[in-house]
């Protein structure tokens, strides 16, 4: 990667004390070269040694041939945000090797394919040229497989150098090749060959080492899209419509995989879920709205361009009050942007999506647990409030591997909201589809097909009265949209509530979604390195509950940390909470790379310095 390192590196090639369980390994390679299994093997092996890890896959919007990087961070403190500084670099890509080498801090270790001849580039890092081509020739007789198998050799080399236990590598490989014993043997051999070569040829071990500890027991290693798919699965989703788009595709693809295993009726052999690949996003959301109106728990997954295309239908669902779960796995940029980079870029666009007066509940999962639970909960919210609900994930959460607590089985049943069946209808005297009976703005709905002759109504995106009858009456219109607004405001207390940390200092930090990990680490840096104590509120949903304004009001200055250019959550807070608007400062990061703690720390320290000066 070409991003310059910002933190001070270690001195030079002298290696004093080893640094244990605090390191980053980066593998620079070419996409389509099959390095994925090798990289996740490294990650998983460290994880199995009980060391907290996280993996970030930085890949191009391309199928094969362009540079790609995989970064593994192991950290005994449990920091799992991206870290820019690379301690151990594996250079498998001639295209970027020079830049990659230039990017590491002094003291790093660089492993490279011998023929790349990198050793002379710097004298403040340790170079190890490895004859990958030669080794793979010896291990793998089938020429066609060598391109893949060579990756396992660097696994062996890295394992030997930083101290990953072979048995854990083997067990990770067993998992990956569970159904392919032959491939398993071949790969294990390759790892061993790498290991052996390193044992023989590299005497000075790098400073950065891993050593077994016990901080990952019981945990799982998974990406957010998979977690969201599991959430949807256990939410009892019955219709999912989608159109492929990076970085959301793997969400519904995971759902397809899971449904194929777990949603086939044992008795009938039939699918208890319909997953439909629509012709585009307009159709996907149309499918969801049709299905939800007809009673299904329905969802779609997409990314920014899909949201733009869904806008008209989202307005319809809002106004005709049809539930819909929309998981938006955000990516970088307006338009096509950088499809394989991350961003929290659709915060404003989702909150007020579509023309006219609208407002939509949004959930902001920050980790795997929440990708699972928030997605599940979104269905309850959508059905209870009869409205589209956004789950705003992003590429970093959705497509990268994160450590997490195992999913908890949902307690209780589904909240399907105010649905009247034949019996219930019979008891209601004067049912009106859009009547506010309970004072919460939420009307009672019926599902097409309900017998008894009393439940039929006519849904529409044009003006309608409490009985769902067409009207152009202005007062009826205003009355209706006021009720809808009340209804949506009422979601605030039913959505995941903000999470507060800190003991009441002057400085507050607000973050949400994947900015969380970096902020957590940054707060420790601020306290430890700068002596700056901060309070922290993590926002989990929109509309904001009253506690958000209260917390902001209780602080002198509040930094909103987020991953977009315009400070969109900050803007949303400005709109909704003007009374505390003046306290909000903004820290933004929008290169498309996941946020790292150093960036937050540096920005906050600089801002505080300015604040002091101008005070």
């Amino acid at each position, binding site marked *: 990667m070409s991003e310059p390192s910002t933190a001070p590196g270690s001195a030079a090639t002298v290696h004093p004390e080893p640094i244990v369980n605090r390191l980053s390994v980066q593998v620079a390679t070419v996409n389509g070269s099959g390095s994925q299994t090798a990289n996740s093997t490294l990650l998983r092996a460290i994880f199995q040694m009980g060391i907290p890890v996280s993996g970030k896959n930085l890949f191009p919007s391309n199928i094969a041939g362009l540079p790609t990087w995989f970064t593994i961070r192991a950290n005994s403190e449990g920091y799992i945000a991206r870290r820019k500084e690379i301690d151990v670099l594996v250079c498998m890509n001639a295209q970027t090797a020079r830049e990659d080498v230039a990017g590491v801090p002094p003291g790093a270790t660089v492993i490279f394919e011998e023929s790349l001849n990198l050793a002379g580039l710097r004298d403040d890092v340790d170079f190890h040229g490895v004859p990958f081509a030669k080794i793979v020739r010896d291990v793998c007789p089938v020429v066609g497989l060598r391109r893949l198998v060579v990756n396992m050799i660097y696994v062996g080399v890295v394992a030997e150098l930083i101290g990953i236990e072979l048995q854990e590598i083997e067990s990770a490989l067993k998992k990956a090749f569970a159904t392919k014993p032959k491939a398993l043997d071949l790969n294990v051999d390759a790892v061993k060959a790498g290991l052996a070569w390193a044992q023989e040829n590299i005497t000075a071990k790098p400073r950065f080492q891993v050593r077994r500890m016990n901080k990952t027991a019981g945990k799982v290693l998974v990406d957010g899209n998979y977690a969201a798919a599991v959430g949807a699965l*256990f*939410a009892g989703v019955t219709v999912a419509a989608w159109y492929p788009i990076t970085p959301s595709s793997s969400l519904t693809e995971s759902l397809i995989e899971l449904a194929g295993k777990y949603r086939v009726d044992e008795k009938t052999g*039939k699918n208890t879920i*319909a997953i*439909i690949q629509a012709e585009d996003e307009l159709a996907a959301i149309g499918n969801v709205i049709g299905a939800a109106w007809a009673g299904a728990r329905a969802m779609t997954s997409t990314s920014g361009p899909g949201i733009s295309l869904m806008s008209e*239908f989202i307005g319809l669902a809002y106004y005709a009050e049809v539930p819909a779960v929309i998981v938006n796995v955000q990516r970088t940029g307006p338009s096509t942007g950088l499809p394989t980079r991350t961003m929290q870029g659709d915060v404003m666009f989702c909150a007020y999506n579509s023309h006219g007066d609208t407002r939509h509940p949004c959930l902001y999962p920050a980790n795997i647990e929440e990708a699972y639970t928030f997605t599940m909960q979104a269905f309850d919210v959508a059905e209870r409030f009869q409205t589209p609900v956004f789950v705003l994930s992003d590429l970093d959460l959705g497509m990268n591997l994160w450590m997490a607590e195992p999913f908890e*089985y949902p307690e209780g049943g589904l909240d399907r909201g105010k649905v009247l069946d034949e019996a219930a209808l019979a008891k209601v005297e004067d049912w009106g589809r859009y009547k506010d009976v309970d004072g919460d703005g939420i009307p009672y709905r019926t*599902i097409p097909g309900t017998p008894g002759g009393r439940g039929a109504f006519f849904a529409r995106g044009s003006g309608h009265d409490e009985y769902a009858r067409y009207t152009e009456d202005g007062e009826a219109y205003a009355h209706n949209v006021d009720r809808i607004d009340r209804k949506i405001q009422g979601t605030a207390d039913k959505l995941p509530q903000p999470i507060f940390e800190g003991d009441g200092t002057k400085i507050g930090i607000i973050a949400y979604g994947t900015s969380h990990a970096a902020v957590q680490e940054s707060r420790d840096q601020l306290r430890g390195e700068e002596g700056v104590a901060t309070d922290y509120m993590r926002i989990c949903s929109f509309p904001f509950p009253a506690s958000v304004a209260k917390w902001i009001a209780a602080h002198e200055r509040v930094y909103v940390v987020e991953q977009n250019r315009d400070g969109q959550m900050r803007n949303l807070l400005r709109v909704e909470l003007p009374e505390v608007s003046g306290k909000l400062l903004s820290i933004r990061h929008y290169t498309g790379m996941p946020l790292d703690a150093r960036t937050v720390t540096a920005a906050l320290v600089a801002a505080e310095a300015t604040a002091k000066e101008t005070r």
Partner: protein
Amino acid sequence: MAAAPKTNKIGLSVADYKGGASTLCKGCGHDVITNTIISAFYEMGVEPHMVSKLSGIGCSSKTPAYFLNGAWGFNSVHGRMPSVATGVALANRELVSIGVSGDGDTASIGMGQFVHLLRRNVPMIYLVENNGVYGLTKGQFSATADEGSVSKGGTANDLPAIDLCTMAIELGCGFVARSFSGDRKQLLQILKAAIAYDGTCMIDILSPCVTFNNHTGSTKSYDWGKDHEGPVHEIGFVPNWEEPDVDFGAGATVEVPLPDGGVVWIKPVNEHDHDPRDKKAALDLLREHHQSSTVYTTGIMYLDPGRESLQDDMDLPAAPLWNLPLETTRPSRAVLDEIVESLR
């Protein structure tokens, strides 16, 4: 004592199939279709509460409010009814869906979704109330307006018309018919057959817009329709609970049994011997007449009783998905454990 009204096989009277009062222009072709829909559902004895009425936006798209008050209606957004209909079909396959669209709604803004609805064979009746113009926005030409036909204001349309029947057949639709608001008798039989059919029924109906496209020079006016209509056959439909007592006479009559037991009868007229099961013949017939524009050919152009519906394609259960019990839609604790284990 007043005589009890006539009722159908489930004991309902025609009144039970009516909708709200139409707000369309007096004489609008769409109203004729609305009334024919009422008759068809009445005669077929469909339970109104098992019907979903879907539409986009336009004068035509308003009409679901004017029939079957006891059915569920969804007037969605312009041109995107097909996707809504697809969702409905997935959620509850027991519903009988009827979608009403216009030529603007289908052939202009809705073309993409229309094509994919046909390709998927979503079971529903899809009506295009085709008047060659955008009625609701005051008479602009739509994509089905014939080349050379003249607008009320006097401008000639210089783009070729899209033939929706040809398109539907090419896309694999198994029930493709063409009719005319001015020919209620034919339309009624087609609609009844469509109600019995399992799959997409695309019915393209010339339905004059009396306000904006009913003048001389228009090829979508009542007069033009009356002067040009050339039915390829006389059509009858005998539902599965009735004896086929229709006597069409001679051997030229074609019977097409539908899987549900109903039978479509067809008796060639106008010297045609079109067998609607012959796809190539159907396409040739349409092409000839689309190009000649001297005859407006009506009837069931193509009928393939055997095509698999979307829900069967997707291996869905017989019961509506939306209402499956929680035990069926939420996997067990053991399954979650299994999933978690696989991630360790």
